[in-house]
């Protein structure tokens, strides 16, 4: 008797829906075991991680605040990855976007200005991110330089540029020479939507981005092109599509979205530039993109999910005194399960009785 694993020709739709449920069930089980081992009641532990971040309006706003930059970046990265362009430097594009956006805020600081400042910052940030993303794109198309390396290396360069700016030319003249820019004027900060809580206009903006990207991918020729180039590059060449133009396009879009996320963090969350403006959103978004199956709506769900576990981890430190490392282990396990279950549904498991010899599948 032996187990035979065979790849399914078509994964039925119901299985695709069931797969995350498998993952959740496994996570709940091993989470419960882990909490019990650490001396924490399993129900309290799971509640803290997965429910406490969703319990009231304030907490929900925080989930949105945390998920917004992740969604924005992940949607852009999905377009890249679908078309076989491996941009892993979104963190750097985020930083440059924040720098370009902040340039507007710093330049208009203290001057009479109007409601045009914030839109100008958003546009500047998107342009900045897109331009910075064009560097690996052009190095790829012009010199065949591998974009994984160039986009990753440029992250460090971008961070050092930001560091230089906030310690040098853009340092707040009245900030005791601490490394920070001035606090942006109210016109240069993301408009908040509620009286209490940090939800701002960037969250609906992210939803809009998701909607546009979903339509682009599913309903337009460009979206078709992106998918075909990734799946069947030869067919794409027969269709007469220029892979170079497409590389530039997806890098520019994903850079612009990462740049937008940078403006969101600088102007919406921090209200200034500091040497560190992102807790690694550009890298986390890579996971979001894959968890979301490179689908904009999937990215939205994945970003919300990851945001919940990040905040749940903070709450676990506060309410249960669990160290941050436990959260990281838990998150890692959770991602393993999700990936495993996504993969498992692509196979059919059957138990064959009798002789082991013969066909493999």
């Amino acid at each position, binding site marked *: 008797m032996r187990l035979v694993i065979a790849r399914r020709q078509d994964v039925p739709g119901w299985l695709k829906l069931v797969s995350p449920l498998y993952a959740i069930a496994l996570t709940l089980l091993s989470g419960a075991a882990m909490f019990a081992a650490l001396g924490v009641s399993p129900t309290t532990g799971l509640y803290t991680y997965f429910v406490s971040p969703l319990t009231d309006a304030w907490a929900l706003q925080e989930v949105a605040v945390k998920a917004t930059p992740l969604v924005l970046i992940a949607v852009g990265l999905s377009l890249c990855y679908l078309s076989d362009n491996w941009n892993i430097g979104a963190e750097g594009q985020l930083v440059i976007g924040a720098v370009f956006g902040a340039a507007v805020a710093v330049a208009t600081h203290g001057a009479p200005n109007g409601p045009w400042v914030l839109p100008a910052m958003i546009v500047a940030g998107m342009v900045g991110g897109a331009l910075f993303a064009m560097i690996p794109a052009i190095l790829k198309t012009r010199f065949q330089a591998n974009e994984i390396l160039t986009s990753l290396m440029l992250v460090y360069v971008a961070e050092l540029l930001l*560091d230089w700016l906030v310690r*040098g030319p853009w340092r707040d003249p009245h900030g*005791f*020479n*601490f490394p920070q820019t001035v606090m942006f004027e109210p016109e240069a900060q993301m408009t908040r939507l509620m009286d209490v809580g940090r939800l701002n206009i960037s969250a609906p903006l992210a939803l809009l981005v998701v909607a546009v990207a979903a339509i682009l991918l599913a309903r337009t020729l460009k979206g078709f092109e992106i998918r075909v180039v990734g799946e069947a590059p030869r067919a794409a060449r027969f269709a007469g599509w220029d892979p170079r133009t497409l590389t530039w396009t997806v890098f520019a879009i994903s850079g612009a979205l990462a740049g937008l996320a940078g403006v969101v963090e600088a102007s919406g969350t921090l209200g200034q530039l500091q*040497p560190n403006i992102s*807790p690694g959103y550009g890298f986390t978004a890579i996971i979001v993109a894959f968890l979301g199956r490179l689908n904009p709506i999937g990215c939205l769900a994945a970003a919300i999910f990851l945001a919940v576990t990040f905040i749940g981890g*903070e709450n676990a430190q506060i309410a249960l005194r669990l160290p*941050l490392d436990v959260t990281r282990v838990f998150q890692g396990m959770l991602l393993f399960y999700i990936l495993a279950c996504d993969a498992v549904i692509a196979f059919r498991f059957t138990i064959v009785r009798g002789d082991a010899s013969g066909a493999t599948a």
Partner: protein
Amino acid sequence: MSFNRRDLIKGAGVAAGAAALGTSAVAQAAPLQVGFIYVGPVGDFGWSTMHDIGRKRLEEVMGAQVKTTPVESVAANDMERVATQLARQGHRLIFTTSFSFFQATMRVAPTLPQTFFESATGTATAPNVSLYNARFYEGRYVQGVIAARKSKSKTIGYIASFPVPEVMHAINTVMRGAWSVDPSMKIRVVWVNAWFNPGREADAARALIDQGCDVICQHTDSPAPLQLANERGVFGFGQASDMTKFAPRAHLTSSVNNWGDYYVERARAVINGTWKPGDVWGGLGSGLFRLAPFTNMTPEEASEAQKIAEALGSGKLNPFDGPIVRADGTEVIGAGGRLTDDQIRSMNYFYRGVDVAVPG
């Protein structure tokens, strides 16, 4: 037991009053919850570790009167949420232990008027925001004096983190101390652009030693530079904690952060209802930090260093007395003058004779 007490209360006929008293007594007995927000991991050897040791000291001294909650590796982007969450869970005193949290603290504090905030460095106070920091530069002056006695090459190597005023005035003060012994002392500085990156700190120490520096000062948190000094047979100073054991042959002294007593004082103030916003910047005399026992020094060298540390602690000696002249030749203050705290806190220049490029 409880039955009896209830009966007694009933008998006294002051049930309502006693019950009210009872609940207020319970409320007073409930421990004060104190939150600590760290910028790095608890195990970073330096800044966050020492704040966490201060937290443990607070628990040790206050016992059941306090309950503390640390939250580690928090990004400035998440600070407001963590602080709000702590406050919602009943924490009434929150230490935000990094300058990168300062603006976020100022934003979140007005929304949580029942909570007292203590920011480790910052530029302003608020009705419920205090500032606290230590005058670590006093320890740097002592390091300079010792370095000048120990150095044969007359060159100090300084592993600097970031070009912030805290680091720049520390470099100037080391040299002030060194020049007080030997005006021909020189310094080489390497910026590693990190507070904590053991590998790069070790590389920087190697580079400085290779260039002839034989006393290494570090403004980064890991014991790597000191260990390397030990390996290479030169001297060094520990940072944040007593690092003697990492470099038995190289260690001269360490500047040891000691936040615990301050935390006890502030928690007591909240419990007693006497908390007021303040701006504490204490030196060697305040106990906010101390020097680890001198090692690898002759008795004469040690007693000289001890005397200077005492003079600094008592205020008899001030490293920021004039004349002070910038590297570019402009005079900041003349003889007889003294820099104000704000001038020290915002220092972004090197003194004449400190031949180091100002980054940024």
